[in-house]
């Protein structure tokens, strides 16, 4: 009776103590592992920082110590920079081109005395022979004539002549626009011009000593590749 009861209680107490020890042990283990994780994290961060520093130092160090073997990154950057500079040069010369599937596409930029003006495109096919596929050259520029003379035989000359025509045209047009804009007070009536701006006819007045004189001017631009007139006829009206 009582002995058995006491034995039961003892057994129960023993079990509970064992359990408690187990939980305590587990908690200890958990705490230990958590601390370990923290340690490892710290170590990883330290190593990462070290690697980064090494990489940076690597570039500097290797650049100075081993100029014959730059890293792939620097080579690529240098290549891109020189290509961009090349394209900029082409753009500044006024004629740049890009290879296309069927041929090449040229871009002719124009300017007059430091002012950049319009740009025009020319899409060429190279097979079976060099021919113009499409373009945005103004219709009054004698493109077909220039092409007939030079496109098949000397493409450099073709582009050069075409560029001269275009630059001269925009130069003349720019000058005529500037004339209308800045001297509108002195020009009587309208400025008569044409699409190519190679013939300008207008009346203008000149005042001196309280008297105004009216003149009629006829400017003829004989050279299509030149932006200055070849003939000027001034008469008093």
């Amino acid at each position, binding site marked *: 009776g009582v002995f058995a009861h006491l034995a039961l209680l003892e057994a129960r107490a023993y079990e509970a103590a064992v359990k408690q020890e187990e939980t305590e042990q587990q908690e200890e283990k958990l705490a230990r592992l958590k601390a370990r994780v923290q340690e490892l994290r710290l170590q990883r961060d330290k190593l990462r920082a070290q690697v980064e520093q090494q990489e940076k130092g690597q570039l500097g160090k290797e650049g100075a110590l081993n100029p014959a073997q730059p890293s792939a990154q620097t080579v690529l950057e240098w290549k891109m920079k020189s290509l961009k500079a090349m394209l*900029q040069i082409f*753009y500044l010369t006024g004629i740049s081109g*890009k290879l296309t599937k069927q041929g090449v*596409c040229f871009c002719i930029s124009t300017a007059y005395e430091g002012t950049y003006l319009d740009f025009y495109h020319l899409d060429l096919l190279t097979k079976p022979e060099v021919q113009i596929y499409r373009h945005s050259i103004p*219709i009054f520029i*004698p493109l077909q004539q220039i092409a007939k003379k030079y496109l098949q035989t000397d493409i450099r000359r073709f582009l050069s002549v075409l560029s001269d025509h275009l630059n001269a045209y925009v130069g003349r047009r720019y000058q005529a626009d500037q004339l209308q804009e800045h001297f509108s007070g002195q020009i009587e009536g309208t400025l008569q011009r*044409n699409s190519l701006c*190679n013939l300008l006819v207008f009346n203008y007045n000149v005042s001196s000593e309280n008297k105004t004189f009216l003149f009629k001017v006829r400017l003829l631009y004989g050279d299509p590749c030149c932006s200055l007139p070849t003939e000027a006829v001034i008469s008093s009206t």
Partner: protein
Amino acid sequence: MDETVAEYIRRTVLKIPRDEIKPMLQKWGFLSEAQLETVNFHQIKENISQDVVQLCEENSTDIKQAAVLDIIYNNIYPNKRIWSVYQMSKTGEETEYFDLTDFKKKFKRRLRSALKNVTINFREYEDNAIWIRIAWGTPYKKPNQYKTSYVVYHSQTPYVFISASVLRSNLPLLCQALVVASNYHDIHEMELRSHSLNSLKDIVFKRYSQNFQTYCPRPLTERNVAPETVDLRIIQENRNEKERIRRLNQQVFGDGPQPKIEFAQYKLETMFKSDPKMHVLDKKEPFRCLVKFSSPHLLESLKSLAPAGMADAPLSPLLTCIPQKARNYFKIREKKGLLPGSFVSP
């Protein structure tokens, strides 16, 4: 002032939208500012036009001056007429020094030598466009101011834009006068017609957007990309296909707005291909058929066909070649004969 002139001015003013009447009269410059101040431009158009006619009476307007108002109206509203494009050709290669006074003189002289009863007016615009208005008469009748032809010509170009009126019989005479005045030898009508004069100019002067590949270091214009929904629950299944269509469309049509034409007409003279057992058209004659595409803006609608999923990309070159070939009337014949003016069907 002549009764006919008064009536003509009255009718011309009635055509103008009410809010535009005063600005247009100012552009005309024939009535002084003081005179224009006396008109109430808020009354009904009938009354406005009567007042304007009254003022013109005071100034003794003649028909040539009245015609200038008509040119101004047509220049601001050119889309009310249908325009055809004509191309001139010449054999010489000398540089042209287009002299406007010379051109006008030659044109008038040529036209008047054949037909005395014509009213001819010229008006030049800032974009080097010369507008010519011709009212036609007959050897026995005065010019009919309501039957006018309009010509728009840009100097030193081989293209002329003509909006002929009903009297097509005067067209050869008009063409001849143009050729002589502009120092060309020949003129023929192109297969290109539209209501939008500016679009026709864009097509033949190559001012429309063509997609040129260049390295030009210019900032790319912002393309209007519709904002993508960032809702991650929506997945674009056909993203690759959509991108392919967009790329092809851009290659063909470019990025900018398309020239505005209202129709494209294809006259088929091809053989009908059917099952021989069906015994259709045994005589083996060409199956005559006319296909006409119409739209308020045909090229824009063609451009949106593939992205809308209504047609496969790339579109047929018969449709996409319209701006480049500068034509919207085609004749399609069998592959065997490559006749001039025909387009071989693919």
